[in-house]
Every structure is written in C-alpha cells, then in structure tokens.
C-alpha cells in the first residue's frame, strides 16, 4: 500500500548531480570577500574622514603619511529599554522604520515583571528583519479614530538596532495597541512578523526565543 511519503518521493523529479562541497567552498569564499570589501570600505571611509577632519582643523601629522590604520569595525553595545512604551494607533510620519545598514540588533521581550525577561542579539541577516518592518503598512487601518489600546496585558517587544557610526535606534512592537513604531514613524498590520523573522534567525543560531502569541 502506498503512503503519502511515496507520493511525495515520486513527485520529486530526477535532480542533477552537483558537487555541493565545492559549491559551499565557493560561497564561503564569496562571503569572506564580501565581508573583506565591507571592512576595507569602512577603513577607507574612516581614514578619509579622519584626514579630511584633520586638514580642516590644520593638524595633519606628516611624519608618517603612509601608516596603515588598524581595521576598525564599530559594533555598538546594545541594551534593552527598561520600560515598555505604548503608541495608540494614528497616522504616523513618513519614512522607513529602520535602515538596513544596521550591524547588530537586540530583541527584547517584555511581559509580566518590569524589564525585559528575554533578550537575544544577532549580527547577521539583520536586513531581513528591517525589511519585514519597512514592508508593513504605514496607512492608518481603521475607518474611525481609535483612542485607546484595548488589548491590555499582551507581550511587548523592542528591537534595538546598532549602526556602524555607533548610533542606536529603538523600534517597539506594541501588541496592546497594534502598532510597530520608532518615535513617530508608525506601522500597522502583521506587526509581529519582524519579531518572527528575528526569532527564526535566533533559532537557526541555536537560541530559544519565546513563542509569539498565536504561535502556540
């Protein structure tokens, strides 16, 4: 007797032989080169900026003009905000919630006692989290004005992004009010999606972030 497994196995066509170890090697080397280019670009930009600044203030040191600066990669230290913030739904200001150039990101999960009870930092694939945020709708979704936040007691999330220039941005996911926001930039709709994307990256790295409401 055939089972679903046989049907699924039969549905797969003949697939070509591929040297996957070699392909992994190619991809690993490509990623390293890309990282090297980014690091080199950062060093060049910082060096150019430092030289331009020094010339501007007339303090260029000429005794060692060819000295190579050490590679500098700024990865800001990130902390979870102590308090949750609420943002009732209203039309927000224009602009993206976050920028894809972030170099690290920290997920903070709140609920129950004060302060974040879970936190996890990632340093790769951050752009996918940012894209999930920026893809959310900025349109006020209700046909009438909503003053309060009705869903009291649901979890609250904050994602803190760190940027190469040392700046940090806090994005809040407020399930009480149904809003995702950074300052006055507000998004609506599937606001837990960026948290799901973040959590999937953490899980793929071996972490165990808590499940989101509705995923139980």
């Amino acid at each position: 007797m055939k089972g679903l497994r046989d049907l699924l196995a039969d549905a797969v066509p003949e697939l070509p032989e591929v040297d996957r170890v070699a392909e992994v090697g190619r991809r690993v080397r490509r990623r390293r080169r890309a990282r090297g280019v980014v690091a080199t670009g950062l060093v060049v930009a910082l060096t150019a900026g430092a030289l331009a600044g020094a010339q501007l203030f007339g303090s260029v040191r000429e005794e060692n003009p060819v000295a190579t600066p050490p590679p500098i990669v700024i990865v800001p230290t990130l902390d979870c905000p102590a308090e949750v913030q609420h943002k009732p739904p209203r039309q927000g200001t224009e602009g993206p919630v976050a920028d894809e150039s972030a170099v690290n990101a920290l997920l903070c999960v709140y609920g129950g006692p004060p302060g974040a009870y879970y936190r996890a930092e990632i340093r790769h694939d951050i752009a996918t989290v940012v894209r999930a945020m920026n893809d959310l709708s900025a349109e006020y979704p209700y046909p009438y004005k909503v003053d309060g936040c009705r869903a009291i007691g649901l979890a609250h999330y904050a994602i803190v992004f760190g940027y190469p220039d040392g700046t940090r941005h806090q994005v809040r996911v407020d399930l009480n009010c149904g809003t995702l926001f950074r300052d006055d930039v507000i998004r609506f709709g599937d606001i837990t999606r960026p948290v799901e994307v973040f959590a999937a990256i953490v899980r793929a790295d071996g972490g165990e972030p808590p499940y989101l409401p509705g995923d139980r």
Partner: protein
Amino acid sequence: MRSDPGSPEGFAEFVAERSDSLVRAAWLLTGDEHKAEDLVQVALVRLWERWSKVDEPGAYARRVLYTTYVTWWRRRWRAETPSAAVPDTVTRDDVAGDAVVRLAVRARLARLSSRQRAVVVLRYFEDCSVEEAARALGCSTGSIKTHTSRALAVLREDAVLRTLMEEGVVL
C-alpha cells in the same frame, strides 16, 4: 585548519551522505530545482560556519533549511502559482499513471502555505515526529498539528488524490 570546506572532520562526508535527501526535501518545498539547490546551499554554508560547535549536524541543517524556507522563501518566491493543469475527474487508468499523480501532488503542494508545506514535507517525507518537526520549525507541537490537519485537508480536496484514498492509499 584549512579554509576550504571539506577540511573539518566529517563535513564532506556529511554532505555526501545527506545532501541528496536535503535537496529532495528542498525541492518539495520550493518546487524548483534551482531554488532547492540554493536553499540547501544556504543551510550547508551555515552548517559549515558552525560545524565545530554543532552536536547534531543533520538536525541543525534541517532546522536552517526549514526556517530559512518559511521565513524568507515566502517573500522571495511568492510569485509561484499553483498549476491549473490537473484534471478535476480521473479514471482508474489515470490514477494508475504516475505522471497524473505526480502532477496532482505537485499542484496540491503549491496550494499550501509555506508553513503547511514545510510541515507536510517534515512529517511525511522526512518521517519526523510532531516534536521533531516543531524543533525544526521553531514552533509549538500544537502549531504543527494544526498545520498538518489543514494541509492534509487541502491535499484531500484533489480529485486524483481522493481517488487514490478510495483505492487504499494512506493520506
């Protein structure tokens, strides 16, 4: 340690032994040979980077494969559309034809959500338990059961597959 894959103890052997089944599972997820290869490569590269720290490489590669598919593939490949080429009614002769069944299975898989499709492949192609599937997808066992039930309902809607059920195929 050399910098090219194949040098850490066992990685090349792991790829040789497991990548075929990974790529077949990836094909069932994506329905496309190139996307399947790409998905498997993402999982293998991630595995290679953590090879010395991972206790169960098979489980780790599977987790990366499925979570990557569910979280990223939906957006990147959502242009995929279900095939309308499958007949609504079938005869016994048609059912006997592997091609018809193959098309029916593929068309029904394409109608599933990414998470339902992942659950079907995990549970019924990879023979994972509910708990193993939950670990691979990073969700609860209740979520797996719900997706399984809904996915099977979608599969059973197909005339070809329904006929197979009547013929005794377990579905």
